[in-house]
């Protein structure tokens, strides 16, 4: 009861110094707002990372042609990765279930009647849907017979359907790829962004045989997708791969590799280090703005304490204990930071919605920022309100009244 009445009086004091209170509220609001957005973005990015890893496949390893450090994406000009390499991997490394070599051409002119556009062409193996866990939503995938006979058949991505064949049942239609007619036999399920970030739906899959011999006339492939027999075999297979490839490509120790290996772990690590950098930056921004809010709070509270010396002296004279004065000022600080925190949460939620709408970064809105925000705003209130409150409680009542 005693404290409730003190509390009621505190709010009166805050009302009296509206402008000052508003400044503190604004400061904390900015900090908590930033925090809310940060947590939202972080969670969204983390989820996207997990999505990508899941899409990549937890039991898969990718072997790309060409050296270098950039992951992922194959070097289109490398001519060193062959079907024989793929066969050797399948036969010689323990734990490999099957391999799926693939030829990638990022842009080819594709047309249907009077419409034309550029799409990525993938020459893919027979077991490609299985290798990628990629479903066919309409029509079918090509048959063993079509693969063997280098048929000009195509399974097209969702974006291809939308851009080239809008309003048309694509299955059975004829499209031209590099000036050769291909029959559309199926449509790939929409898959969204690749681990590299690009869309995976603007692609056209044709038999690898057709791609190598008839369309692009090459003897090498861009990548080999390796399916292991289980998650626990991924590491072992990835460890054996480099030695086999170096042996097959006659690469001696100081020479650089002409291939790259991407594992789910590597992908995860890469994505996490990227989001970690983002995280640290945003966390620093949040910490700085909260600190600024706290410093504003402390200064204004100190100002308030010196302005209200008479009030403090009076309260002590009529029987207020040091603890009562301390609590009153601490409560004033807490009230301001809590209000700032709540406004900050609202601002942050709104900011997250806007960020999700107008940027590519995914934002997830959840309860954690609310809990963290409220806890942090209390922490700011206590940490930065304590010094002024202590100073108030230690004021010598006789001096304060003079």
């Amino acid at each position: 009861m005693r404290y409730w009445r003190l509390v009621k009086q505190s709010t009166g004091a805050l009302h009296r110094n509206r402008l000052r209170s508003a400044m503190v509220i604004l400061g904390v609001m900015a900090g908590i707002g930033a925090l809310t957005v940060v947590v939202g973005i972080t969670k969204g990015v983390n989820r996207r990372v997990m999505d990508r890893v899941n899409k990549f496949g937890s039991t898969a390893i990718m072997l790309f042609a060409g050296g270098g450090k950039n992951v992922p994406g194959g070097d289109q000009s490398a001519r060193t990765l062959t079907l024989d390499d793929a066969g050797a991997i399948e036969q010689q490394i323990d734990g490999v279930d099957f391999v799926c070599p693939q030829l990638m051409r990022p842009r080819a002119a594709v047309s249907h009647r009077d419409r034309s556009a550029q799409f990525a062409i993938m020459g893919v193996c027979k077991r490609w849907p299985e290798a990628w866990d990629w479903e066919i939503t309409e029509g079918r995938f090509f048959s063993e017979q079509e693969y063997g006979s280098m048929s000009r058949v195509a399974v097209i991505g969702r974006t291809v359907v939308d851009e080239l064949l809008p309003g048309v049942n694509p299955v059975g239609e004829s499209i031209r790829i590099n000036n050769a007619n291909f029959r559309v036999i199926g449509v790939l399920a929409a898959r969204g962004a690749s681990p590299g970030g690009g869309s995976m739906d603007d692609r056209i899959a044709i038999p690898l045989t057709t791609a190598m011999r008839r369309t692009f006339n090459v003897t090498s492939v861009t990548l080999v997708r390796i399916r292991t027999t289980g998650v626990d075999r991924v590491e072992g297979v990835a460890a054996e791969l480099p030695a086999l490839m170096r042996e097959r490509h006659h690469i001696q120790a100081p020479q650089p590799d002409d291939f790259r290996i991407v594992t789910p772990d590597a992908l995860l690590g890469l994505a996490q280090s990227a989001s970690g950098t983002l995280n640290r930056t945003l966390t620093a921004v949040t910490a700085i703005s909260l600190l600024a809010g706290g410093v504003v709070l402390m200064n204004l509270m100190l100002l308030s304490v010196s302005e209200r010396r008479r009030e403090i002296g009076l309260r002590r004279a009529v029987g207020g204990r040091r603890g009562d004065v301390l609590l009153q000022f601490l409560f004033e600080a807490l009230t301001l930071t809590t209000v700032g925190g709540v406004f900050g949460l609202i601002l942050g939620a709104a900011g997250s919605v806007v960020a999700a709408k107008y940027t590519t970064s995914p934002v997830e809105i959840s309860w954690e920022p609310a809990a963290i925000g409220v806890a942090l705003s209390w922490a700011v209130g206590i940490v930065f309100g304590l010094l002024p409150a202590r100073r108030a409680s230690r004021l010598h009542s006789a001096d304060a009244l003079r």
Partner: protein
Amino acid sequence: MIELIGIDKIYTNGAVETPVLRDVTFQAAKGEMVAVMGASGSGKTTLMNILGCLDAPSGGVYKLNGVDVFSHDDDAISAIRNQEIGFVFQQANLLERVSALDNVLLPLIYAETYPSGAKQRGLAALRSVGLEDRVHYRPDQLSGGQQQRVAIARALVGNPPLILADEPTGNLDRRTGLEIMAILQKLNREGRTILLITHDANMAAHAQRILTLRDGTVTEAEKPEAPLDAAKELEKLPAERGEQ
């Protein structure tokens, strides 16, 4: 009621020691109205702070209702102030933007338990200073004299046996000052001990006893003739302006 025995107060500023009170000894009985008179710089404020349990003396004993005040800790002394003493300062020291009633109730907030009839007590205190029609006015809507009366009501609300008034009329004109003095005299007739600290002999003359503070030492003035009655003085004043 009040017993000061050999009170010393020395302010220390670095190596410089300034004695302000020297061996101050006096008593005031329950129900007395005593004035302590002194020029500025005589140690009045220091004495007031000690009497109000706001500042500890350097030496000596202060007994209030038989209790050795400064042998207690700060929280206990706060409780003594709350229970035993009603303060009236030169300035009303009211909380801004808070109604007269809420200002009056302030000491009750700091009481060990908030009394159930608090509001009624606050209203009664305001009535006893003649402000029953200004209960919900805020300080900035009240005149100086009215503000001082709110301060007196605040001093009364906890029903303390001692009212400590430090230059209560110092900021007021003669008429308003007499009005305040009349209220204090009325409270004294109702049985409260009143200690009036002032530099103004005209105001001190309303007390039954007058102590003089000079160079940090208190001397009892010669027994005054009958104390002045502020209410009667007011009647004698020309009724030129009604301050209320």
